[in-house]
């Protein structure tokens, strides 16, 4: 009861501060949904493993997720979110380290590295959907605010 009183007092006292209640009950997007294709010299790669890692608190509380590419080389990863919760009453500046690794024929490729600095959906590409082309023959490199062998598919 006392705890509830303290919390409600806290929320009421925060309300006049601009933006305080914005996003209070919304989800926090840690990794927007990804659609991609893995190619080797332009040919779709079947059975490649895509490992998705997210680090945003220490120790990392998000278990790594693995999916495989289909016969057409395509893969999809659902968006990863966390509940806003009372500790997230005020929207803030996160630092979410995102990583996609691609494993194929015993070789590990750095697919995607990005530091997501917002909880907004698709903030990785300033609002664009995450559609990636991951060419295993590429050397990992920077493209905009991400790094790896995956490049953003043309719109």
């Amino acid at each position, binding site marked *: 009861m006392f705890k509830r009183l303290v919390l409600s007092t806290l929320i009421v006292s*925060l309300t*006049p*501060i*601009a*933006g*305080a209640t*914005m996003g209070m009950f919304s989800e926090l997007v840690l990794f927007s949904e990804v659609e991609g294709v893995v190619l080797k010299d332009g040919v779709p790669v079947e059975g490649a493993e895509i490992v998705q890692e997210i*680090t*945003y*608190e*220490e120790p990392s509380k998000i278990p790594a997720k693995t999916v495989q590419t289909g016969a057409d080389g395509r893969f999809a990863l659902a968006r990863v979110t966390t509940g806003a919760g009372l500790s997230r009453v*005020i*929207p*803030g*500046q*996160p*630092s979410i*380290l995102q990583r996609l690794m691609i494993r194929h024929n015993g070789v590990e490729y750095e697919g995607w*590295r*990005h*530091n997501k*600095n*917002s909880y907004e959906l698709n903030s990785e590409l300033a609002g664009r959907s995450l559609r990636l082309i991951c060419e295993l023959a590429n050397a990992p490199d*920077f493209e*905009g*605010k*991400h*790094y790896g062998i995956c490049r953003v598919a043309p719109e």
Partner: protein
Amino acid sequence: MTLELTPKQAGEIADSTYALRLSDNMIDAAVGAASARNDFEIVNGQRLTGITGVGPVSRTTGFGYVAFGKSGSHQGECLVAIRGTEKSSAHDWMTNVRMAGVSGPGGYTVHAGFWNLASGLLPQIQRTLRGRNPSLIHVVGHSLGGATATLIADALHRSSIAAVKLYTFGAPRAGVELHASALTRNLGRRNIYRAYHHTDPVPMVPVFPYAHVPYQDEACWLQGCGKLLSVNDHLMPTYLSSVGDQSWGQLRSAQPPTLDTFEAADRWLAAAARVNSIPIILSASALRMILWALRWILRKAGEIIGYALLGGATIIDYLAKLLYRSVLQSIAIARAVENMIAAILRFTGRTLAIGARITEAFIQYVLELLFRMVTAVAVRAINQLP
């Protein structure tokens, strides 16, 4: 000719440091600094570390990096980027407990917490610079990292390693007025690039006698999203959006309304104190004006009473004493202090009772009310940082 970093470059560099809190891979910093990584070898930069937390929960985390210029416009130059601190220590650092200050670069009084962190990072920076002889060092930081960057810039300048340019976003004040004045003179006003939203609560603390660099300069005043204090307006994505692709010259051209004399402060307070005047509850502009007015009153009080050393008392104790003694000696100050108290109470949603006696304890209560509120909002903003 030395080239300054653009506001976008400096902002992205400040933002990029946060990735190193949980990562020791410099690629994670370089991804965020897209507009600067072609000019500086961030990927091969030196990650700076510091200890956070105490006792068994203490651990070493990344606090920024040092990177050198690539061939081109920044060849031979160096970049030092500092991130803000852990949220767990933010409260300590922003409250009255630690505002008393310590002797920092050049013997000037600076904020104890910021100097403590700067002192831990400086040997790492100096080790990295050894044998490199850069022509220019760009020092960049956001939030508490901006205040720490300010003291690092001061120390690096004093060690005569190279010329220094300082860039901060939403930084609190790092040292007292004498320090700010000396550092402004030493680095040169045009080599200090301070950007802040008028609604960001963090640059409003710590209060007088702490002062910003460049000293007595509005620097790059950015319009916040609304009229109220806003924690969102403290965050780097908001700063990056505000500076966009503008130049420092463009950012410097916007100047906020200000109170440039005691008389102007007196007039503003008289208007703000009236119950039926403009609404000022939690207004960022009103808070700014109140803090300006407080500064002018304290200056006037200092002229009359003289400043004593801060000693062991808290700053609020000291300010209340100074104000009360001057109230007893000057009718002009008495009127200004009464109006300021009424304005502060209105800002916090309260009203000054008619006929209330202005005592030292009452001044202290009102100042505490104001500082606690500003500090609480500032700490809340800092707590949002990773």
